[in-house]
């Protein structure tokens, strides 16, 4: 394919109506993006872009258009463009959202795009999610067997059995796509990044509720401390911004009930 053909193909996949102008309502939107280019300056600054949009344009479409047509220096993360990979989280007028699931038709006036709050900014809209990944790993997010010394027999492999009712108990909490929006929403994480945070605690709770798992006791030390469940004050904004309706606030606070029960039992056991 020639360069012109590749360019033409890329522009048309942006779906900003260059081919079917008669069927799409094209307007112009004004987007301001918080830039940070550490090689050039230690200060961040706002940069404005005007771009053609129609009713279907997502924020991710817009960022792609900016990068391809207007300003190739802009950096941001994205992948699936369908709200399942969790890569494209940004702040849109102060609210954490997925770029692929945010539609510019819903916004009047200026649209301000900033990197996800409460994470160190590496460049433009790219943040350092390391602390998030550490917190996820800290809760041992995998099935823990209480009888590990079982020889695997390939002739008679043992499988887990789980009823639909047992699945229902934890399924909602398993839908997390690790996008990190809840951490940007959570003021307790903003005040103290040592707080395990919504997604990590929800993940722990997901495994604790899974009938195949026996690791609740092992996760308890991580959860039953101040930076575990006890930092949460049920602000609930995490659940509000979650693009997969996981309801992390419910999971964290159910985790408080579990931690309280564990403490009571530990007290009686002496």
């Amino acid at each position, binding site marked *: 394919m020639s360069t012109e053909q590749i360019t033409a193909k890329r522009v048309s996949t942006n779906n900003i109506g260059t081919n079917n102008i008669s069927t799409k309502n094209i307007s112009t939107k004004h987007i301001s993006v918080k830039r*940070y280019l*550490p*090689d050039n300056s*230690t200060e*961040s600054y706002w940069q404005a872009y005007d771009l053609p949009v129609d009713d279907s344009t997502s924020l991710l479409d817009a960022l792609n258009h900016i990068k391809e047509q207007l300003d190739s220096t802009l950096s941001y993360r994205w992948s699936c463009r369908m709200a399942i990979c969790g890569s494209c989280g940004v702040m849109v007028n*102060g*609210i954490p959202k997925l770029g692929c699931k945010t539609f510019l038709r819903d916004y009047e006036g200026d649209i301000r795009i900033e990197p996800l709050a*409460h*994470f*160190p*900014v*590496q*460049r433009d809209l790219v943040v*350092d999610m*390391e602390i998030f990944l550490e917190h996820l790993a800290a809760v041992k997010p995998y099935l823990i067997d209480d009888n590990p010394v079982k020889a695997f027999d390939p002739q008679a492999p043992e499988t887990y059995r789980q009823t639909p*009712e047992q699945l229902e108990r934890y399924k909602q909490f398993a839908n997390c796509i690790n996008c990190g929006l809840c951490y940007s929403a959570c*003021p307790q994480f*903003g*005040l103290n*990044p040592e707080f395990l945070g919504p997604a990590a605690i929800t993940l722990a709770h997901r495994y604790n509720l899974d009938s195949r798992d026996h690791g609740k006791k092992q996760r308890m030390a991580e959860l039953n401390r101040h930076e575990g469940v006890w930092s949460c*004050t*049920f*602000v*609930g*904004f995490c659940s*509000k911004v979650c693009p997969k309706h996981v*309801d992390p*606030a*419910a999971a964290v*606070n*159910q985790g*408080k*009930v579990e931690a309280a029960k564990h403490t009571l039992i530990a007290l009686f056991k002496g």
Partner: protein
Amino acid sequence: MDKSSTQRLPPLKRTWWLKHGFFKLYMLREATVLPLLFFTFCLLAGMFALLQGAESWQGWIAFMGSPIVLVLNLLALAASLFHAATFFVLFPRVMPLRIAGHSLPDQVIVAGQWAGVVAVALLFFWLLGRA
């Protein structure tokens, strides 16, 4: 990851909650304990007055009838109802109840709690509202 180019994260400003209506409502919810505290101190004063005799008791009732105290306690009443409204919707999320293998719908749990509020009011009416 090249951490040396990572921008330092400035600490959250203490006015973070002013940035969004959701956070302001959260702070309002938390602040309902302030009018509650005022009413609690009024109650403690009443208990003292009751111990000291009939005259003190009447004096306390007069104090409770003064305009500022009435307004503050009306605020306390509003605060208790706002607290109830926000507290009741949190309960089914913290402790989802199951009966016969099915989880109770949230509205049922919320309605049940409001029924408790009404029951207490009826109890008070039975205790104090009849001649």
